[in-house]
């Protein structure tokens, strides 16, 4: 069963001086798959994610999530934003419960799940703290818990670790993989880091700069669970080299002196 199905979608912004953000993007994402969408800044990768989330309408083409045409945010969707988007006036627990409150679902079931999620990301001690009392990495972990509290079948992540320092980012990559192996939902992860995309994903979708087109879809055949050290193996190097070549071919990386 396909979770997300895009057929020749195009997204054009603005009237007079129109900007084509996405051009002829066709992609099927199977249920339970982890897909990275990789591309340089401004290539439309976030736009693609926002279209799936129903936050932006596509200009043409068809886009389905779980067999239903997207017109507005689909049900059962979790989203993690680049800057965690935690509500400063709510404690971490209250933030995580927000989707349950909005969906008018029963609290007791969710409280148990929240406890599991908090434990999974190591925030058990911080449930009654406010976001401003937490570090960037802890905040983003809380945001991931919030996205997962209502057991979404599709999890969308828009450069979630882009604002974190390199070490925290590595740590978060390992944790995200562990969380995802527990939950096994469909995950679409937008990033501009080649290493991150290969480390996390079953498939890496490489987008070209504006207008965003799919250059290639690279299947990552590395055994899980992956350790950070996998990044030093020849197999991993082969994938990143292959993708870097694509960017070189697009003129995005130029090493000539």
């Amino acid at each position, binding site marked *: 069963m396909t979770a997300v199905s895009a057929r020749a979608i195009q997204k054009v912004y603005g009237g007079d001086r129109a900007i084509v953000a996405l051009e002829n993007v066709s992609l099927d994402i199977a249920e339970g798959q982890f897909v990275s969408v990789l591309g340089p800044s401004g290539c439309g990768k976030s736009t693609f994610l926002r279209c799936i989330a*129903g936050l932006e309408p596509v200009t043409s083409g068809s886009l389905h999530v779980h067999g239903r045409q997207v017109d507005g*945010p689909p049900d059962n*969707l979790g*989203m993690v*934003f680049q800057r965690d988007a935690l*509500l400063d006036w709510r404690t971490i627990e209250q933030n995580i419960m927000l989707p349950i*409150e909005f969906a008018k679902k029963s609290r007791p079931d969710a409280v148990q799940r929240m406890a599991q999620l908090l434990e999974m990301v190591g925030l058990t001690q911080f449930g009654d703290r*406010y976001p*401003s009392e937490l570090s960037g990495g802890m905040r983003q972990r809380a945001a991931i818990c919030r996205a997962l509290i209502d057991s979404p079948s599709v999890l969308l992540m828009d450069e979630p670790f882009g604002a974190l320092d390199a070490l925290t980012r590595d740590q978060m990559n390992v944790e995200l993989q562990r969380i995802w192996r527990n939950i096994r939902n469909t995950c679409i992860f937008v990033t501009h880091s080649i290493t991150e995309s290969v480390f996390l994903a079953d498939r890496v979708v490489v987008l070209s700069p504006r207008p965003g087109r799919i250059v290639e879809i690279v299947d990552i055949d590395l055994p899980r669970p992956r350790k950070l050290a996998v990044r030093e193996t020849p197999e991993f190097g082969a994938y990143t080299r292959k993708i870097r070549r694509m960017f070189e071919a697009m003129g995005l990386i130029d090493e000539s002196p």
Partner: protein
Amino acid sequence: MKAHSNRRSRNQRWRGRLLSITTFVVLLLLWEAAVVSMHVRPVMLPAPSDILYELWHDTAWYLSNAGYTLLTTMAGFILSVLIGVAVAVLLVSLPWFENAIYPVIVSVNSVPKVAIAPLFVVWLGTGAEPQIAIAFLIAVFAIIVDSAHGFRSIPPDVADLGRVLKGSPVDLFFKIRLPCALPSILAGMKVSISLALVGAIVGEFVASQRGLGYIILSAQGSFDTARAFAALFLLAAMGVMLFSAVESLERRLTHWRHLS
């Protein structure tokens, strides 16, 4: 750790308060010394001791008049918060409303309220209503402008979150938009509480038989400058009290902003 930092900030606040009280006392002493040594006539400038005596010997009368002014001020202020926030919500959510109404609000605000005050007496009589109306009219603009700014400055990520979670309009408003705008609304309230007091006094100047504004005006008519100053002292104290009340409301409602 949390308790410790709280204690320290409370300590600092008390030290600050002590310092400002000292300043006031020193100023009053200087004033007293100047009036006595330069033989200033009481009609021009009474000594602080005369003013305090005046207050002390007619306390009940002064307090009942101050209470009246406090009541009209609060009524005007509360109205301005309720209506100001509602108008700001409409301005931000309905583009046609903004185009249609905002210029009207700005032009009404440009007219000096003192100039319209006599008209309110014609329309609303000589009771408390014209004073409340003027207090409201002076105070509401700051609330509208600051609240609208608050509702507009909701971070895009947070707005997207609300849409993805598909909250009901009521949930979206009370759980996301209003708390996001709250710091700005409170900033507007801090400005408008002082303006509401000005408005209430203006109203009393124009038509009233009660209130601190009425005392000042009637004292001026009988050259009883000490009485006017006594009312001014009370007015200043009330202004400080109202402003700190809004400040403490702000601290309570946005305590999460002062954690880290």
